[in-house]
């Protein structure tokens, strides 16, 4: 029984982090109907930034997430300004493929500069600390990352629901032209949304560095899982992303433990396909 609880807890904590990664993608997809294919690589860039800050300047990930969030916010805004805004509305798949080009660029640039080696931060504040409750062991880095992701998600949800900026974003998502007629600068909103989406994944990447090794391919799997979460949770919906992310985290942990570690992603992808066949627009999509 305690093994089961342990596995469920691990899945839950992983799911919370996935939710933050996916929330950024979901926001961009929901507002602009654009898939940011470089989303996973944004995570990788944030992880490298956090790693180098920790390695060279001895800034702990528990602090440096602010820097990674801000950095990827700017990266996202630049991506919108120089790439996405120039190919949006031209052809259906143009923004997706352009951001795929960006992801290739970022991945191989980091490969070229930083080598394919796995790098992990030693001697972080949280390293090796754990909470032990009877038979259950919770790693403090995972716990802090999970809870922190949840807090950022709540902040994002609050921003979307309770502030004028959030209303403007929602209005733009519903009908761009009508929002423009109401005096909303929708180009600025798109820029901000891309930046915010980047900031979410940047913060997630910064936190993740406290227990996960960074390498040029690290973003690929996270990016893919984020796509599944968004498609499953319904685009633009933050609660949907959270629910789908936790479901995916749990399936991953349970399949990894009770079937075999190699099958955990097979189970995740198969579950996604099963869900999407029954509800083509996701669990919470409309």
């Amino acid at each position, binding site marked *: 029984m305690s093994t089961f609880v342990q596995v469920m807890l691990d899945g839950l904590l992983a799911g919370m982090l996935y939710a933050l990664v996916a929330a950024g993608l979901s926001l961009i997809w929901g507002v602009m109907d654009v898939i940011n294919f470089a989303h996973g690589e944004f995570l990788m860039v944030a992880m490298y930034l956090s790693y180098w800050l920790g390695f060279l300047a001895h800034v702990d990930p528990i602090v440096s997430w602010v820097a990674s969030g801000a950095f990827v916010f700017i990266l996202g805004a630049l991506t919108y300004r120089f790439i996405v805004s120039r190919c949006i509305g031209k052809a259906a798949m143009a923004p997706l493929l352009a951001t795929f080009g960006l992801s290739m660029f970022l991945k191989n640039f980091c490969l*070229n500069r930083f080598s394919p080696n796995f790098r992990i931060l030693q001697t972080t504040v949280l390293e090796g600390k754990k909470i032990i409750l009877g038979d259950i062991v919770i790693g403090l880095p995972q716990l802090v990352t999970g809870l922190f992701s949840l807090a950022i998600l709540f902040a994002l949800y609050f921003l979307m629901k309770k502030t004028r900026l959030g209303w403007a974003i929602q209005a733009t998502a519903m009908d761009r032209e009508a929002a423009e007629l109401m005096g909303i600068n929708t180009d600025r909103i798109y820029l901000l949304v891309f930046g915010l989406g980047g900031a979410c994944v940047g913060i997630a990447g910064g936190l993740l560095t406290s227990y996960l090794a960074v390498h040029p391919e690290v973003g690929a799997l996270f990016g893919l899982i984020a796509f599944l979460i968004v498609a499953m949770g319904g685009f633009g919906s933050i609660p949907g992303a959270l629910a789908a992310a936790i479901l995916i985290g749990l399936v991953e942990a349970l399949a990894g433990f009770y079937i075999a570690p190699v099958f955990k992603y097979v189970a995740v992808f*198969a579950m996604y*396909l099963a869900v999407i066949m029954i509800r083509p627009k996701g669990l919470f999509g409309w």
Partner: protein
Amino acid sequence: MKTRKFEQKDFLWIGLVCMLAALPLVPGLIGNSFRAHVLILILLYASMAQSWNIVSGYAGQVSFGHSVFFGIGAYGAGMAVVTYGLTPWPGFLAGAVLAAVVSVLISYPCFKLKGHYFAIATFAIVEIFNRLFMVWDWVGGALGLDYPILPDGWKNFVWSETKVGFFYGALALFVLIFGIVRWIETHRLGYYLRAVREGQETAESLGVNSSAVKISAMAFSAFLAALCGGFFVQYNYRVDPPMVMSLDMSMKFVLITILGGVGNFWGPLLGAAILIPLQEYSRAYLTALGSGVDLVIFGIIIMLMMIKQPKGIMGILQDLGLGAKERKREGEAD
């Protein structure tokens, strides 16, 4: 149009093939050289991109799952040679047929999805196949299959002395696939495909069974992609899951076609003719700059192309007015 006579275009096409076929006869131009390697890859990737073009260009269903079919074809040939000690020929056929069957089984449910949802479902399928093949001992698992040393010739479809045999093999594949796509394009199926792309509801209202049309396009596409996979494994003498069944391989199908011009007959050849030499020469000559430089350049080109002209090089040619004839022909088709 039923009994169409040879037109000027057809002579152009025959001329191109004859020119390519004569290339190895010119001494020094193509022997066991790097240039031969680049030419073979151009023909192979143009064929792959053209097979993708059937379902994603003409029928407008953007699939990111073609590496699955490519991989099944590669494993068909690889297992015929390595596991069963046969020649690769029955493997080519078995792989292609199996890929077509798998494509129908996959696409029957997936075609219910639209746009980005369809694209993401195809990603998930690639990942499932990749991970299953990684742990499946019968197909060699993560280690893959390594070819034994075999005598050269068409029987084994391997050549180690010169690459001329592979060149003619690639040329045959190229002619086969481009020929089939030309045939589809000018016959009923091609018109149906374009009708479904332009407006599925409208096409259905005119009596086109859109799901049957899309599924048959997918089956053709998968069959031909699997043949390319078979050639690929013969050319590399080995196969493992990341080589053939990965998102990166799927994206090659997509990017070459997109760069050349999606939904356009000559697009895949143009895309391959530009991208492959760029990739191979930058890989060979920019090694001083470290690994990954070729893909950095590749990424920049894709970004620039999508910003400037999402219709690819064919779109740029049309903008320049060189494609006026092509446009007229498409106008007639519509």
